[in-house]
């Protein structure tokens, strides 16, 4: 137990000075949900404090309380040992707290510079006007400082997810914050940008900035974290040192039980008949000449860099984008229609952006779970509330969706639970081919394991899956085969024994 003793010593050194910021006894209740229950939390300058927890554990809520977006029902804030009030985002900003949100807070029709300095625009000569020269120069400066080389006059609407995340980071950095909160900042980033971010974090630490970092990626937790706080069901479970615990320990703390994270798979010995065959597919969104095959009982990966066109491929297969050339054969039949045809044939698409494309946020969990299955469950067209709720209960239980009721609006669930609802609706529809676009983005380890187990069960029962993931480790663990994309084309295919992160990166790189 020397290791533990050492870390204890380290903790006491840190605690000699008062924490830069401290939250004491924070509670926050939403109708039907106790999101935070007497949580205390502190950060010191120059440390990265990891915040861990299952989906819906209350991490984002705690950070929203911290930055003044939510008002806590009870509890107090202390800055440098002194009690302070935070009742609005403006209060938090004055204390030097900046947040990189899980959901982007960017304005689509303003340019990058305007977004970075929103609310803090340099004043021009005429009162009320903006000094355009200065705002552009400042923006360039901030972007350079995080190693993101882009023209600050580009409007946000033109940017991809990763680029938006980088702007979000630039925006937080530009505030010269003393306390920086990052809520799953790497969920949308590719490896290159992730490296940039980590380098940046190291620099900020050296400058004495306190960083609160939320992530579901274990590797990050250990490589970045100086301390770890684990939340479960809105309560603070423990605060530990990364050196003192294993990832299994952390998972047990988060979930309250142990979870097998090796995602064991019952690999099909002989893949079944061909379920999906794509020949020479091109679409208006820029992909061209895509050939791929998915057989029954297989999980096929689709990887590549961000922007390589993976999403576009699956959208074209599903019929969400119009194909301009090529053929899609499903179960030997030619498929040419839109998503409704795809759904009828037994395809399912779990899209990249659950809020925009996956869910009707104002509708209930039950309504969302049932929506794709309406035709199957009520073939005669008459809808029955009782039957539909029964289906919804079963799914809620099966997927362990955390919700006070099937009547809760799905928009009020935590991110991970929302993702489960999106998957659930296709289970109800009885799909045969599941297309996952980043199925585990923003999902906690427990849920991730559950989802992979689920996918495994589905394919074992005769379905098939095509899966996009930016986490190459996941692809390597889970897939039978994988296609690697580059610049809107398939760059190559990797068999099970060839699957390694190295090979994926090699194939996915741009070649001149």
């Amino acid at each position, binding site marked *: 137990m020397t290791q533990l003793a050492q870390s204890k010593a380290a903790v006491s050194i840190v605690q000699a000075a008062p924490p830069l910021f401290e939250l004491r006894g924070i509670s926050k209740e939403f109708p039907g949900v106790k999101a935070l229950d007497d949580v205390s939390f502190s950060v010191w300058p120059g440390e990265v404090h990891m915040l861990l927890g299952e989906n*819906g554990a209350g991490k984002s809520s705690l950070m929203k309380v911290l930055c003044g977006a939510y008002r806590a029902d009870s509890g107090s804030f202390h800055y440098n040992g002194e009690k302070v009030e935070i009742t609005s985002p403006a209060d938090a900003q004055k204390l030097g707290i900046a947040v990189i949100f899980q959901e982007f807070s960017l304005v689509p029709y303003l340019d990058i510079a305007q977004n970075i300095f929103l609310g803090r625009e340099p004043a021009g000569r005429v009162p009320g006007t903006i000094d355009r020269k200065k705002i552009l120069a400042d923006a360039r400066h901030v972007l350079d400082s995080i190693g993101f080389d882009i023209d600050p006059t580009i409007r946000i609407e033109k940017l991809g997810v990763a680029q938006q995340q980088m702007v979000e980071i630039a925006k937080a950095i530009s505030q010269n914050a003393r306390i920086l909160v990052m809520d799953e900042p790497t969920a949308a980033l590719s490896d290159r940008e992730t490296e940039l971010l980590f380098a940046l974090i190291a620099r900020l630490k050296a400058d004495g900035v306190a960083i609160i970092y939320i992530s579901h990626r274990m590797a990050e937790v250990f490589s970045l974290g100086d301390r770890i706080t684990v939340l479960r069901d809105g309560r603070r479970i423990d605060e530990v040192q990364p050196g003192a615990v294993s990832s299994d320990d952390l998972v047990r703390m988060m979930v309250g039980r142990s979870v097998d994270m090796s995602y064991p798979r019952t690999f099909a010995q002989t893949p079944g008949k061909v379920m999906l065959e794509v020949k020479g597919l091109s679409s208006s969104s820029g992909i061209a000449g895509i050939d791929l095959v998915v057989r029954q009982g297989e999980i096929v990966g689709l990887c590549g860099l961000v922007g390589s066109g993976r999403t576009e491929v699956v959208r074209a297969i599903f019929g969400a984008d119009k194909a301009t050339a090529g053929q899609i054969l499903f179960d030997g039949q030619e498929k040419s229609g839109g*998503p409704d045809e795809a759904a009828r044939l037994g395809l399912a698409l779990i899209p990249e952006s659950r809020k*925009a494309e996956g869910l009707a946020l104002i509708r209930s969990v039950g309504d969302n779970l049932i929506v794709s299955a309406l035709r199957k469950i009520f073939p005669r067209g008459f809808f029955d509330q009782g039957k539909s709720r029964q289906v919804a209960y079963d799914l809620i239980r099966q997927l362990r969706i955390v*919700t*006070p009721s099937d009547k809760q609006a799905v928009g*009020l669930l935590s991110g991970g639970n929302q993702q489960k609802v999106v998957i659930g609706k296709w289970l109800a529809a009885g799909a045969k081919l599941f297309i996952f676009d980043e199925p585990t983005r923003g999902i906690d380890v427990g849920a991730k394991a559950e989802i992979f187990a689920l996918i495994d069960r589905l394919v074992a029962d005769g379905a098939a899956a095509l899966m996009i993931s930016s986490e190459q480790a996941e692809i390597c663990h889970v897939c039978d085969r994988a296609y690697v994309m580059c610049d809107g084309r398939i760059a190559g295919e990797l068999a099970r024994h060839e699957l390694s992160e190295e090979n994926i990166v090699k194939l996915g790189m741009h070649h001149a």
Partner: protein
Amino acid sequence: MTDISKPIASGRMLLSDEMIQVFYRLLAAFLICAALTILTNSFFSLGNILNVLRQASLLFFIASGLTLVVLTGGLDLSIGANVAISACVAGTVIHQTGSPTLGVLTGIGVGGAVGMLNGVMVTALRIPSFIATYGMLWVLHGITYWYMGGETMHGFPAGFRQIGSGYFLGLPIPVYLLLVFLAIGTIFAQRTTWGQEIYAIGANPVAARLSGIPVARRLLLVYTVSGAMAGLASIIFLARLNSAEADIGESLTLPAIAAVLIGGTSLFGGLGTVFGTFVGALILTLVLNGMNLLSVNASWQPLVTGVIVILAVWLDMKTRRRAA
């Protein structure tokens, strides 16, 4: 956080939000009735109540189809103009053929065709419904003005006029029609898969499409139904007024929209009920009836209606628990 093995929480959740909303609105309608009963001695009579119901039914027919459109997150500004053109064409058919049946079919057909055109503009041409139907409004007016040449058409067969002014077992015939369509509308919206899909489309059209709902086809259906309901309303107008004129439905569009909104249907789509719209139409009619009975100066009527609309929707906000 709640135990996931028991997804149903408190009993309050069992009463759907929609039902609570409608209950509040019925309460409001009831309060207006109570006030009018006290303030006038003529309000509380069978005759007047039937009278209010019959007037409300005219508004309801237009507003019920519109409700579906609004549920999908759209709007149909052309309904008033649609009523006019349907009435004029149906009127001609009745005059020419002497057959009310043919006339009724024509009216509903023309209305439905106009609605379908709206649907095509919204789905195939991807024009926002507000603009598409506003354009349609003027196109229809133009055609109707040209067709009628500034004249009116009047004098329809007595049998046909029964649809608008007749009684059956002591109740006006439009009231029966109202009940029938209220039932059909409610069943369609709440008890069919199409209805569920319409709510889903209104709440998030992109997600609905990616969930396998044939969004374009459902929208086409909804706009066509809304148009056909305007066509049906035009028949009732025709029978009730015993005449067709080019501006017959012009003054009805905004009240119909108001009835839908007072009835608790959200303009952003995905929330609301047909029954709510009925209560909305009832409230608006009661207010006008009351002002007539109280001989309120005409100048005050728009003002009072405006206040009522805002109050009703405010009440809705206060009582709605569900949020995004």
